[in-house]
């Protein structure tokens, strides 16, 4: 599970059966300083989230388990909205919050 920032949406009308109605979001993983860590990726949204939100996501096979149908080709899913992440007493990842 990783901390990430939602940086955009992805719209795909034609998709694998079982993924209907599942929102797809661009997420940028963050490190403990709140900085970008590695490449951005597309994740299914198992909880409501939108661009700018701080979230945590799960990767691998478990990503699919967070979706409404669990036997689907998914390897990353947003499983929580983060209101506060603290590293050694300092809040991180707040920079882009309104």
């Amino acid at each position: 599970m990783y901390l990430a920032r939602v940086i955009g949406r992805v719209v795909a009308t034609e998709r694998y059966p079982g993924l209907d109605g599942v929102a797809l979001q661009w997420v940028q993983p963050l490190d403990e300083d709140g900085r970008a860590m590695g490449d951005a990726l597309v994740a299914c949204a198992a909880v409501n989230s939108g661009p700018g939100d701080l979230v945590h996501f799960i990767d691998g096979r478990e990503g699919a388990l967070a979706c409404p149908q669990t036997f689907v080709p998914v390897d990353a899913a947003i499983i929580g909205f983060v209101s506060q992440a603290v590293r050694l007493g300092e809040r991180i990842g707040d920079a882009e919050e309104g």
Partner: protein
Amino acid sequence: MFLADVVGTVVSPVQIPLLAGKTLLLLRPLAPDGRPAGKTRIGIDVIGAGVGDRVICIDEGNSARQILGEPKGAAKTVVVGVVDYVELEGELAYDAERRAPPAPRSSP
């Protein structure tokens, strides 16, 4: 399993039902000698670990589901032990009783 320092906490008011009431910890994965190694992760705490503890973590779905008792749960990273000491090639690489608090990372 990997070794990590607990460097922070994550508060998530909206999340999948599996995680309700669970504590999420911000983890800094470490090499055996204590140097940071790998990507920052979030782990589910099941043992009462806190910031400053050096811990062992699982990063595998089946084990996580077994620990949480959720056969279909979307969980992967779980904090499963607090480290007392680490011995590396015959020398004490880490001792919880003499630990220093985790330092801010120096590398960019």
